[in-house]
């Protein structure tokens, strides 16, 4: 066989391009067990996976409404239908009233809108580590992305459903006072996000250890809903007892958040800063503590889910 014939047998061109050698010439060895023990390094790693968080949030939204005829309309339909039901039964039949001078539809929708965000986020985030066990046991990535994307997806739903809220504001424009106090919405939303993420981190990690949480949660959410001024006014609690009201607003950040939304958007009042301060402190401390707890338990997730 001639030399040229031999050459022909060697594939003249590789099918694929060979990847360039790894960039950094002398990488530093890092201890993968201890390299992330502070919140700062956790956050750095999370920031590094920012795009993954975006993609998983998109995925959450996409799969939730894929193959549904109404799609994202469901995000609106849930608080809207509850508002109609409660409007008919509680307001029309039972004669229940919201805050003075506030149309009941607008009053209850404010509460239902922010509550739906909270409860949807929890109901998706809490079992999320278990439902995603197929990835968790196969590939490493910061696990907080899983519950976090559930909360963010619920937040997007919340923003979509807020369109109806704006519609209601326009419809009842003569009974609504809009002024600079509306800007309180931004810190309130941040507090609510922190609180929701904090609860989600804690309970989703805890669920991995004890599956009981999954079954207890629907009940807890329902009881919590009644302990929050969604269908009734927080002022009703204040009328009964000042002490009870203080306890009520101190222990339940959701009560403060919903009550404040109404005050600052619909009534144009400055919300009660004392309670907002307490809610903010609780939410941030909860978020930090539960994040720490989550990252601590994270090491065992793949063994337990």
């Amino acid at each position: 066989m001639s030399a040229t014939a031999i050459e022909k047998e060697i594939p003249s061109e590789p099918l694929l391009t060979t990847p360039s050698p790894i960039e950094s010439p002398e990488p530093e060895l890092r201890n993968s067990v201890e390299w992330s023990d502070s919140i700062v390094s956790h956050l750095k790693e999370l920031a590094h996976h920012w795009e993954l968080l975006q993609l998983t949030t998109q995925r959450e939204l996409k799969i939730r409404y894929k193959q549904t005829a109404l799609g994202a309309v469901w995000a609106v339909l849930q608080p809207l239908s509850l508002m109609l039901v409660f409007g008919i039964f509680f307001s029309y039949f039972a004669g229940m009233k919201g805050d003075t001078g506030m149309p009941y539809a607008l009053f209850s929708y404010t509460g239902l809108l922010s509550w739906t965000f909270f409860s949807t986020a929890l109901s998706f985030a809490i079992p999320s580590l278990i439902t995603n066990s197929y990835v968790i046991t196969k590939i490493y990535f910061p696990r907080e992305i899983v519950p976090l994307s559930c909360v963010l997806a619920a937040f997007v739903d919340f923003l979509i459903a807020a369109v109806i809220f704006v519609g209601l504001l326009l419809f009842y424009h003569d009974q609504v006072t809009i002024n600079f106090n509306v800007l309180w919405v931004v810190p309130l939303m941040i507090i609510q996000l922190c609180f929701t993420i904090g609860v989600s981190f804690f309970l989703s990690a805890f669920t991995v250890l004890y599956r009981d949480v999954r079954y207890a949660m629907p009940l807890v959410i329902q009881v919590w809903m009644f302990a929050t001024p969604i269908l009734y006014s927080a002022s009703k609690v204040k009328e009964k007892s000042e002490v009870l009201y203080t306890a009520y607003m101190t222990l339940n950040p959701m009560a403060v958040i919903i009550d404040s939304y109404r005050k600052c958007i619909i009534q144009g009042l400055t919300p009660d800063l004392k309670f907002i301060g307490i809610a903010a402190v609780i939410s941030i401390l909860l978020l930090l503590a539960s994040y720490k707890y989550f990252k601590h338990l994270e090491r065992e997730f793949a063994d337990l889910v």
Partner: protein
Amino acid sequence: MSIVVLDKVSKKYRLSRLGSKSIREELGRMMNNLKPSSRGQAGSDEFYAVKEVDLAVKRGETIGFIGPNGSGKSTLLKLLARIIYPSEGKIMVGGSVASLIEVGAGFHPELTGRENIFLYGSIMGMKKAEVAKKFDRIVEFSEMEKFIDTPVKRYSSGMYVRLGFAVAAHINPAVLLVDEVLAVGDANFQSKCQQRIEQLRRGGMTIAFVSHDMPAVERLCDRVVFISKGQIKAVGKPQDVISIYYNEVLFAKKSSTGLAQNNTGLAIESQTSLYGQNAEILSVKFFNGDGQETDTISTGDKLTARIHYRTYTQIEDPVFELLFYSPDDRLYTHLTTAINGTNIDSLPDEGIVEFDCSEFGLTPGIYKTDAIFSQRGSVAPYDLKPRQYILKVLPGKSVRGMFYNPQQWRLLPPAETISVQSADSNFG
């Protein structure tokens, strides 16, 4: 320079605490622990999946992990991938790690192929822009152009795996962990996968992989680690470690395979009780190059096999055959007196037929042998001993490829080279 260092790494599981429990069970356990009688058992249900493993992987090295099922290979890979955390010891990694523990594990069935490429790439640590840049190449590699906008749940399992591997093969981590995923898709795609791994290797990537496919381990790895019961038994050159592995693990199982084989033998015999009526195979024995009886040789060694037979009637035009099967029952080679002109005219009532080969070509493994004694052209043999005789082959002269060929090489003298070329050009 090391890129991965394991320092006394152990992974311990408490058998009774595998999986999560309900609070009630946990309370029950706590109450039990309070009783003095049940104390002190704590250590008994501990199980080390990986125990005190020390290992340093060099940059750019391809390292293979072999061992029997449940030996802790995959656990070790999961530890490296940070999927699970060691109970004791330290793992140091210098750079990003991507794991192919299960191809396509990050896919979501509801999303399309296109969406999943981005999601999976991102889970594996690629940036969106990077995936976008490599998107066309990934799709081309997977051969899935037509179905890229179809939800993954409509894919066949082969398509699923192809897309998964295509994405994974285009990430560029410092360390790539591969667990038994080379055997995906059809033969064509498999060779493409292996080619790609080979390319990544040459590109300077550090690769750690777990496999039971010894020829692949032999071909791809620079170094092999043999793990048994969570501990490293041997580290070194592929050929050396693989032969230690064969010796310790496969051959230790002799008694159990022998039993299974006897069972099948019996079953066949009872169905075909006619075997052995007119003639019988009494034994088959193997001999090595020194003429000693043995059941173990190395690839490329001299092998002699002797079939001891006895006849009860007049036998005309007899044929003797030996068939070698791998443990998964694939026929590897067929030796017969029928096709290489060996005619035995007159057969004594009892005697020995000898097969002789100066360089036996089977690659390492355990082979079970059928011995057949029949008349040329007849359908029913006089005697058939199915999977009765065991021959073990250790790595020897060569272990790459499917079989070994005896070979002669020489450098042609210059004068001869010219004459060959001119002869060629006559035809050209």
